[in-house]
């Protein structure tokens, strides 16, 4: 339902997952949905990706956890979450009634953690897909992030694939030399789709105290600042893999979303923008429809990957 643009078809498919429109909210920026219920018509969204869930609850990092940067922010939340059991018992109750797709973002310390989470969540009523956050450190491998080593990324993907028949989205880390390669290995390992980007690793220092501004020293950079990097990676990945790509990174208004769709994303996620503009996701849905209408297009699917690049 897009109000005045009812003639426009916004439906997209992410592998086996069908969405009313290509606009999702990104993990960690929309809580468990309920936090925004007063401000956003959740049933208008393509879907909600939950805060990352682990097997056991996690308290997260000590404060300070966030810093504002130029057109962006750093966060070092430390993956605070209620744990999978509490999530299913408490958070899913509301999400099930929200009238939108629910994609559960999962994270672990080991390949086995991911597999067990996928198994536990499979069959839970109201869960439409899993998104696997592979930017987490592998505690068995000295804390190197799963998402920066192709073999480790493939292992996580394969294990989750074996554990679930839910649509499986693997969320890539941008902190790598060759994002196309990472996408290709997770495709090969059974992912139904890839989403990117997660945050870039960054840092900020308080000169006066000569201390890091985050207790965790480093954190993840998000927001409009990273959009050009995200868009480039999405374009690169969309040309490399044949599974659908979900674009994420600094998307704040319809034009941003359209850039990602034209670059080859089949859907997008709105992240940090939910903080400074809770209406962003809804405005983007309307804005995409208005753009298509204005351009004489009938379906959003016709603009996906429509980037015209001069030959040569």
């Amino acid at each position: 339902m897009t109000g005045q643009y009812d003639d426009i078809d916004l439906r997209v498919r992410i592998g086996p997952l069908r969405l009313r429109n290509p606009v999702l909210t990104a993990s960690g920026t929309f809580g468990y949905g309920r936090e925004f219920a007063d401000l956003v018509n959740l049933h208008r969204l393509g879907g909600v990706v939950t805060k990352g869930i682990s097997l056991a609850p996690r308290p997260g990092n000590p404060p300070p956890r966030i810093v504002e940067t130029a057109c962006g922010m750093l966060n070092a939340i430390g993956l605070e979450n209620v744990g999978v059991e509490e999530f299913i018992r408490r958070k899913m109750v509301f999400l099930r009634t929200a009238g939108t797709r629910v994609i559960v973002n999962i994270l672990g310390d080991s390949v086995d953690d991911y597999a067990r989470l996928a198994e536990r969540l499979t069959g839970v009523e109201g869960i439409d897909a899993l998104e696997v956050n592979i930017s987490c450190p592998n505690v068995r491998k000295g804390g190197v992030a799963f998402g920066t080593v192709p073999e480790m990324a493939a292992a996580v993907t394969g294990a989750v694939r074996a554990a679930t028949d839910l649509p499986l989205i693997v969320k890539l880390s941008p902190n790598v030399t060759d994002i196309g390669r990472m996408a290709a290995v997770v495709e090969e390992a059974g992912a139904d789709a890839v989403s990117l980007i997660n945050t870039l690793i960054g840092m900020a220092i308080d000169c006066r105290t000569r201390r890091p501004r985050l207790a965790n020293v480093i954190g993840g950079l998000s927001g409009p600042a990273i959009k050009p990097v995200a868009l480039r990676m999405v374009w690169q990945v969309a040309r490399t893999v044949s599974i659908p790509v979900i674009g994420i990174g600094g998307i704040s208004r319809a034009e941003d979303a359209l850039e990602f769709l034209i670059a080859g994303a089949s859907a997008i996620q709105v992240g940090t923008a939910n903080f400074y503009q809770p209406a962003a996701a809804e405005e983007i849905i309307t804005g995409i429809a208005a753009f298509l209408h204005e351009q004489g297009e009938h379906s959003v699917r016709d603009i996906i990957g429509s980037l015209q690049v001069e030959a040569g």
Partner: protein
Amino acid sequence: MTKFQEKAQILDRQELAAGIYRLTLHAPLVAGGAHPGQFVMVRTDDSYDPLLRRPFSIHQVSAGGDLQLLFKVVGQGTGCLARLGPGSRVDLLGPLGRGFRLQREDPVCLVGGGMGIAPLYFLGKRLLQHARLPEFDPVLLGAASQQELALLADDFFGLGYDVRTATDDGSLGHHGFVTDLLDQVLPRVSRVYVCGPYPMMRIAAAKCLAAGVECEVSLETHMACGLGACLGCTVQAPDGYAHVCVQGPVFEAGEVAWQ
């Protein structure tokens, strides 16, 4: 407590002292449901620099749907806000957070330092709705100087409170910390509401604890969302972490792991 996003028009801007402003906004949705101690997240324009909204306590609301903010220019975001004149619009999210518990009987004490005075005025007005006798409620206000404090103190006088002041430079009232004034009033009150710089709140909390008086404090942390979604506004609590924007900003002093 429904939250709203509302484009609010600025009706008036008053510069109370150098760099200290009181803005009057027309924001009927946010003002309508607001409770003392709650706050709003403010965005001044569509620029991405600064990116995040800024949190401000609700200073007071009117029956007609107006809402006031009291703030000091300390950086880029407050600088932008201070440049807006009547007719401009700002985008508000609110009312947010858990406010003060209204004490219906027994004398209370309000302790405010600097911009921490902002939410106390709303509290002071709302408390009067409960048929209190404000002349038995001490209001202790502190600031750097007479210049910063005088007009704010007058507002509480106007409500009938027993106002006492302290300034860092001695230009008005007690020359020293506002918490110095607490000792003589603690025996007479059953609850103290405190908002101001962290060290001041820590001292007030300790004095209340020692005197066996209930104490509520309003904490500040950096916030990205104000909605409980980013999990960025953490403080240490005795049993783990608390999130100021939803569990606070007002806490019982005992809910805080003072450092």
